């Protein structure tokens, strides 16, 4: 149940799922870079990019609703950029009076803010597409064979593997607390806030100690199977013609969007 909530992969048979993960990672990164490089207020090209994202989602047999609803989670982070509205110089749209302060919104600021919002929203959708069409092990392989530092990839892969074990452990701890959170008489239960905080702190410490001990055992299990400090993996992927073609096509589309964005605005 929870595993499904954490694992965003959607199992389908589609040309997108079938692509070499390295191509998908590279194209996603390039696409995000391209979105970031588009000038402010180039609404037409934003829309064009969005159409491209939706087209990929359709080919990958993902529901548009799935991509859209998932992408909303990142919007609150983009709200940090709202200060732009009030700090950028430009024609004043309206003025707010906050006690002794007076802040005014500018049109240039508003355009910049909306552009940041649109860009981050598009980028998140691209990342969601990558996650929904690529299994995590394949993603890790892609990163490893794209020369990402081996230590980082190893840390990521351990995180992925043990996130679920840790979540299970937390669930067990919480359940044990719940099972003993009884109440003898009618009325308030559970003690003071300080007491609750202390219980939560103990549980966190408990979790840390368990994880530490587990890491020891895992390292032993690795040593027992001949680990000598160098992580070795097989590369199960090889670039086929259609992978190269997809890569070329994606780069072509991105360059066209860039060109349009620069000439139209």
């Amino acid at each position, binding site marked *: 149940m929870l595993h499904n909530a954490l694992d965003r992969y959607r199992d389908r048979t589609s040309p997108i799922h079938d692509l070499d993960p390295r191509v998908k990672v590279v194209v996603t990164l390039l696409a995000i870079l391209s979105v970031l490089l588009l000038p402010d207020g180039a609404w037409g090209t934003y829309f064009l990019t969005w159409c491209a994202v939706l087209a990929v989602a359709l080919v990958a047999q993902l529901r548009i609703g799935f991509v859209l609803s998932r992408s909303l989670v990142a919007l609150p982070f983009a709200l940090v950029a709202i200060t732009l509205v009030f700090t950028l110089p430009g024609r004043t749209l309206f003025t707010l009076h906050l006690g002794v302060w007076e802040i005014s919104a500018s049109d240039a600021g508003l355009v910049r803010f909306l552009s940041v919002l649109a860009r981050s929203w598009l980028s998140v959708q691209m990342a969601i597409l990558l996650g929904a069409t690529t299994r995590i092990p394949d993603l890790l392989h892609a990163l490893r064979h794209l020369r990402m530092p081996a230590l980082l990839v190893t840390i990521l892969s351990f995180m992925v*593997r043990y996130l679920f074990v840790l979540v299970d452990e937390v669930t067990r701890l919480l359940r044990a607390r719940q099972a003993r959170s009884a109440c003898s008489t009618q009325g308030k239960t559970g003690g003071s806030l300080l007491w609750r905080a202390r219980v939560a702190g103990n549980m966190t410490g408990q979790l840390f100690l368990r994880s530490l001990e587990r890491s020891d055992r*895992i390292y*032993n*299990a*690795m*040593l*027992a*199977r*001949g680990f000598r400090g*160098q992580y070795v993996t097989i590369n199960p992927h090889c670039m086929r013609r259609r992978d190269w073609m997809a890569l070329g096509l994606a780069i072509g589309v991105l360059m066209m969007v860039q060109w349009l964005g620069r000439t139209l605005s």
Partner: protein
Amino acid sequence: MPVIHEPMARCEDGWGRTAPDTLALEVEGLHFAYPDGHVALRGVSLQVRCGEKVALVGPNGAGKSTLLLHLNGLLNSGQGNIRVMGMPVTAPNLPFIRARVGLVFQNPDDQLFSPTVYEDVAFGPLHMGLPEEEVHRRVTQALAQVGMAHYADRLSYHLSMGEKKRIAIATVLSMHPDILVLDEPSAGLDPRARRGLINLLRVLPITMLASTHDMGMVRELFPRMIIMDEGRIVADGPTADLLEQSDLLEAHGLEKM
């Protein structure tokens, strides 16, 4: 400086026949104390011949797991001698020892640390430096041996406990060890998974040393039994005989079942 090794003895000759007179494992006067001062082993000596299946029983804290970790050089006491297939367990020999002794940990979540089953089973052979085709052959073979041939692409965290146990055994079988060392193999399994595991261990043609509390499994699977208590070996003999001595069993917190 490179260390030059004598060719190691194997439990099997080239035709898959076991050589029953070879000593797979020799432990002499092993002492061990943990860094916090807790003494876990007080002079343990034992021998296991090729092809034998031996159970190691005793209460919690008797030193069973500590002993098992020594067999693979994961713990090193400096006191006492261990020889695996005639080769002393010393630092320069460790890479060879670890390929010979397949150590299966109690909790498969500790043993299965890769995202997919395939990568976990391939970990040992890959780190032995084998070529890719050979690694692939061994993974396929090991998974087939434990009856999990179709699980190669599965994600480890989606498996059941019984499945994880089998995969954990496959991760060491792929290294073609001479001795399989198991820490509480049947712990945490439901009756059906336990039955499947017992049947699997019965048909695996390999020398075996398993620590366990599961006396039913000991009776079924292991003709020889070693009882440990407080860091010592207190009895070593045929399982059928030892299980008749109720005084002995009771003195060390065991039940005949």
